[in-house]
């Protein structure tokens, strides 16, 4: 059992600390102590203490930057900013290694040229998830799809009427098999839209930006 991982995750038991961590993560950018303290409703020095503990165990990363853009003497001290660390943290008990299995499956699909089998399987999986959503309500809203995406770790947010997703849940597998993983993801999301009855209103597009999910969901009527 990895003591460092357990210590890191254990820190999130404290509710204030967890709220601060979740606030920083949800902003998708660097956050200063004062902003985080105010958003969560804790005192500034307590927020600083918690944020620094989270940085110490590698859940957050620290950057110093002058927010005003000035430099030189008299420009003011640089602000201490926090953002989510890119290191992955996981504890699995009993020990599981799904990443390794996924990498081997990916290698096999790559060698066999079975891209389209993978996409078909992903589409079917998305269809089933979309149909499940449709069963529990009269008509499914995009917000409900967003909730499902949030549960799955995509971290969806609204960007000019499109749904963008800040996190790739398949990150390390996507680095090794980019086109297989992204194709799989797009097919899965298309299946969700189809299964939930939203595919005449919304469409999945491949549009990678930065480190986040390669796909966006946009309204068909908004397209030129």
């Amino acid at each position, binding site marked *: 059992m990895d003591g460092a991982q357990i210590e890191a995750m254990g820190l999130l038991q404290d509710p204030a600390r967890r709220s601060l961590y979740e606030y920083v993560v949800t902003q998708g950018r660097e956050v200063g102590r004062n902003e985080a303290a105010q958003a969560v409703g804790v005192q500034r020095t307590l927020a600083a203490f918690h944020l620094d503990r989270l940085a110490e165990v590698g859940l957050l990363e620290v950057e110093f930057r002058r927010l005003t853009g000035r430099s030189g003497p008299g420009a003011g001290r640089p602000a201490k900013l926090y953002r989510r660390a890119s290191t992955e943290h996981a504890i699995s008990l009993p020990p599981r290694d799904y990443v390794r299995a996924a990498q081997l499956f990916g290698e096999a699909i790559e060698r066999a*040229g079975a*891209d389209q089998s993978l996409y078909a399987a992903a589409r079917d999986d998305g269809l089933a998830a979309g149909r499940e959503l449709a069963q529990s309500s009269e008509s499914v809203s995009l917000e409900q799809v967003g909730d499902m995406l949030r549960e799955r770790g995509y971290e969806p947010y609204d960007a000019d009427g499109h749904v963008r997703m800040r996190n790739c849940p398949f990150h390390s597998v996507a680095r090794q098999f*980019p086109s297989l993983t992204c194709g799989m993801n797009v097919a899965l999301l298309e299946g969700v839209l189809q299964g939930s009855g939203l595919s005449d209103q919304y469409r999945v597009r491949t549009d990678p930006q930065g480190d986040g999910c390669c796909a966006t969901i946009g309204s068909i009527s908004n397209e030129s």
Partner: protein
Amino acid sequence: MHRCPFHLALLNIGRLRAPIDSPQIKDFMDGLDAINALAERSPGFVWRYTSPGLNNATATRPFSDDDILINFGTWESREQLWDFVYRSQHLEYLVRRREWFQHMAEPFLVLWWIPAGHTPTLEEARQRLDKLRRDGPSPEAFTFRQPFEAPQNELEPTPAPDR
């Protein structure tokens, strides 16, 4: 910014599933100009091979198998090439590759370091792919998944492999 005296060359090939002017290949052909233009304005782009008289390389068939198309160019760094290949609109075409190109069991993509500003020849590219296929990844011919760093010694770029 420190300028590396080496650039990265790329050759990747694909065997068409159907004749190039068939309906099955239409979406690939229709997208070529836009993707080539995207490559040219992407950070790190240096040069791309085009068939004489064309804006793309589709008339050039340097392999004995006439269905094999090539994509051949040079970039300033592996990271910038990665960003274009996998983190741009180009990704959409990659995901659809199996609609247009047959599966190939042997390696179909090779990377190698060249002196900055050198324009590699088709023959050089073919040799590098042969080297990769013969010996697996090495400093002379490698892949994204098994990369090698640019040579340290400015006076000795990686030599072309022996025949």
